[in-house]
């Protein structure tokens, strides 16, 4: 555009110069021409006159002459008009002034008024030098014109309103026939705006230049067609490792900086031409040392002096890329660990919401996909689903959990045992940001553990059972051994036993037969209790009646002890099987005699307790260690105790008592102090309405 203006201006000036010369010629030739014209006119008049007769004779010829004349006059008029219009309409001031330093305008065109702000009349009255910003500048300007009339002089004018304008003056001295300067003709142009624009351009170019060279990114300017580097900045040189001399005037291809194929380069040029820019293109730059640098390149299409350039900025992101790559790799590694660790892992935020989970975790918790699981709270999967449960869980999590076992919920609502581990995840600042939670489905382990426990119990049971069998067999064989032994004694033919001896042996046989019978009935009771098949013949009776019914056996048992019975008068009747409760009493009494010294008291007592009656058998024996009391009623324990203590009996007594009492809806327990004695108690339901 500026070019265009320039050209037009240049053309105009040239044209004007031609015109000015012509005006000068015209001035010179004016008189002569006029004389010529008038001569010609006179001649033509003469001709006209002489020819009038002829013309009269020949009218067509005269008319022809008149027409020719008119045409020539029109032409002249046209030419003068053209010149006038040109100097009137041009924004170029044209003046003729006298050569002395002050100078006086002789002629000015209207544009002069426009440029100076003075009217034509004012201009013609004032000194030319007064128009200059500095008075003496006119002299200087005239001097320059004299020195080189083709070189325009730039100077400053002061307008009427006081503003200062930059002007360009192109002038020429006009001399008389003696060579003296008669006056100066000058063409004046106001170039203030153009100057300002030029300055602005200069400044912007300066700014660009500075930006280019001081930019913290590498920059280069390349001729788009030639591909040659026109300018580069220090950073670019630093990036590629070449010196400025090695780079300027060369193409990147020549230096093999990009090591790219021709097509790639052409494609880039095409895009640049089409869109005007390329943004953040990742390219590889090879330095002089052959090192590869990864850069982000942005290019801009520039037009300078009608030529296309590519201005590129390259940002070296190699280190960034490297650290990104390292980070990506480390993340990948971590992800791989996360995924391939043989354990279910989830990452939660501080409130327990799952942000990440590996596929095992997704599967274990019963979800179809990671996204389905994401955002769910980890507490939801722990059996304590309640709010307080979640709070408690959170507190627990914050402390860190190692291998806690919880029942966990599967997505379908089923539960499974899981081993739960939680560790606090800290952010870069070291404050807690969430939790890393691992879960292990331990269903199988639990099952195996349960099985192992069952197996252990079974083995124990088996062991105790064989022990019991050995005991029972021993207890059965002892009376049998007596019976068999004394029977064969009596059958001896080689010995004659006295009658007293025979009677003694037969009594022993009788007693041992009873003992055997009791043992067998105990075993039967035990198996009935085991099978839950103990049949009770319930009736309403007083405890005294039961004691009375068992008195024979009780008396026999307590022959070497002191048996006391203490029942309160207001004791309610009980609802019980008379024989069975009698059996419980005799069993307890028998135990008491076994474990307390001869002559000591054995007390049978009772007391009402709500709708129940508590019956107790107290002895002053050795007592029972507290750790053994819980096991007393356990059949297997009894079997073992028998083996160790061997106090006779099947050892099933207490177990049978427990079975009988429980069949009545009561309970049996023991209170004991080592060295002071034991108190066995059981409850019976009191009979109603009696």
């Amino acid at each position: 555009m500026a070019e265009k203006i320039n050209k037009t201006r240049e053309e105009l000036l040239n044209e004007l110069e031609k015109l000015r010369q012509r005006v000068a010629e015209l001035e010179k030739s004016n008189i002569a021409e006029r004389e010529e014209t008038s001569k010609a006119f006179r001649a033509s008049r003469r001709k006209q006159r002489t020819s009038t007769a002829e013309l009269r004779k020949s009218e067509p010829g005269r008319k022809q002459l008149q027409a020719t004349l008119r045409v020539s006059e029109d032409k002249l008029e046209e030419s003068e008009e053209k010149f006038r219009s040109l100097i009137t309409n041009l924004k170029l001031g044209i003046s003729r002034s006298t050569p002395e330093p002050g100078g006086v305008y002789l002629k000015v065109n209207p544009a002069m008024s426009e440029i100076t702000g003075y009217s034509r009349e004012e201009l013609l009255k004032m000194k030319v030098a007064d128009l200059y910003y500095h008075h003496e500048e006119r002299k200087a300007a005239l001097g320059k014109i004299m020195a080189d009339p083709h070189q325009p002089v730039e100077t400053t004018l002061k307008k009427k309103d006081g503003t200062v304008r930059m002007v360009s003056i192109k002038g020429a001295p006009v001399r008389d026939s003696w060579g003296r300067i008669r006056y100066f003709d000058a063409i004046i142009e106001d170039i203030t705006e153009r100057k300002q624009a030029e300055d602005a351009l200069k400044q912007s170019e300066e700014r660009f230049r500075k930006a280019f060279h001081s930019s913290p990114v590498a920059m280069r300017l390349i001729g788009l067609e030639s591909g040659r580097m026109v300018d580069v900045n220090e950073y670019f040189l630093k990036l590629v490792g070449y010196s400025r001399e090695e780079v300027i005037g060369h193409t990147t291809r020549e230096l093999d900086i990009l090591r790219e194929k021709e097509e790639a380069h052409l494609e880039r040029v095409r895009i640049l031409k089409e869109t005007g820019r390329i943004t953040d293109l990742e390219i590889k730059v090879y330095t002089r040392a052959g090192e590869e640098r990864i850069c982000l390149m942005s290019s801009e299409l520039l037009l300078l002096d009608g030529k296309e350039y590519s201005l590129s900025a390259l940002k070296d992101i190699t280190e960034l890329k490297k650290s990104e790559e390292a980070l990506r790799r480390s993340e990948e590694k971590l992800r791989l660990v996360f995924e391939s660790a043989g354990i279910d892992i989830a990452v939660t935020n501080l409130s327990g919401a799952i942000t990440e989970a590996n596929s095992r975790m997704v599967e274990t918790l019963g979800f179809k996909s990671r996204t389905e699981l994401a955002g769910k709270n980890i507490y939801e999967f722990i059996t304590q689903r309640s709010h307080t449960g979640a709070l408690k869980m959170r507190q627990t999590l914050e402390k860190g959990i190692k291998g806690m076992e919880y029942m966990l919920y599967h997505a379908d609502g089923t539960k499974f045992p899981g081993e739960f581990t939680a560790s606090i995840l800290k952010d870069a600042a070291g404050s807690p940001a969430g939790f890393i939670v691992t879960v292990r489905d331990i269903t199988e382990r639990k099952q195996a553990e349960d099985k192992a426990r069952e197996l252990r119990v079974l083995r124990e049971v088996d062991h105790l059972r064989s022990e019991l069998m050995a005991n029972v067999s021993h207890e059965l064989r002892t009376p049998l051994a007596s019976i068999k032994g004394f029977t064969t004694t009596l059958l001896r033919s080689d010995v004659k036993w006295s009658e007293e001896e025979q009677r003694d042996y037969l009594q022993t046989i009788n007693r041992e037969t009873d003992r055997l019978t009791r043992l067998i009935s105990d075993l039967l009771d035990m198996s009935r209790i085991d099978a839950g098949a103990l049949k009770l013949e319930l009736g309403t009776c007083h405890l005294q009646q039961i004691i009375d019914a068992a008195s024979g056996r009780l008396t026999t048992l307590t022959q070497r002890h002191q048996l006391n019975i203490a029942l309160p008068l207001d004791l309610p009747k009980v609802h019980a099987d008379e024989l069975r409760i009698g059996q419980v009493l005799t069993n307890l009494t028998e135990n008491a005699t076994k474990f307390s010294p001869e002559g000591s008291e054995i007390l049978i007592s009772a007391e009402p307790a709500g709708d129940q009656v508590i019956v107790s058998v107290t002895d002053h024996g050795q007592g029972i260690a507290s750790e053994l009391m819980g096991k007393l009623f356990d059949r297997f324990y009894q079997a073992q105790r028998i083996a160790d203590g061997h106090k006779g009996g099947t050892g099933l007594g207490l177990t049978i008592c427990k079975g009988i009492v429980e069949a009545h809806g009561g309970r049996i327990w023991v209170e004991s102090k080592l060295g002071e004695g034991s108190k066995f108690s059981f409850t019976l339901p009191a009979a109603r309405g009696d």
Partner: protein
Amino acid sequence: MTRILVVEDEPNLRKLIKTNLAASGYEVVTAADGEEGMSLTQEESPDLILLDIRMPGMSGWDMLIALKTNPKVKKMPVIIMTASAPEESEEYKMRSMRAAGYLVKPFGVDVMLSKVKEILESK
């Protein structure tokens, strides 16, 4: 006179065995448990010991081992009395090897007497 030590915790059986052995002309010493049995062994140096296995305190096994590891009395023949047949377990068999013989309860007096006679004669 042949002296026999009977170690048996059950009074009825102790009496039974003592009566019958005495009736057959043996001199009988009785003990109610292993400890008593061991001291009587030292004091009386019996020709034969009838030993019950299942006893509270020092059992028949303990006493048998004590006897067989004491060089002074280890050649003394022992008949063990047990409620279970020795072939029921390997362990039982091994231990009973050191015994001269065994009687399984309940046994007839005749069986006992012939076993005692057999062991004493094989001495």
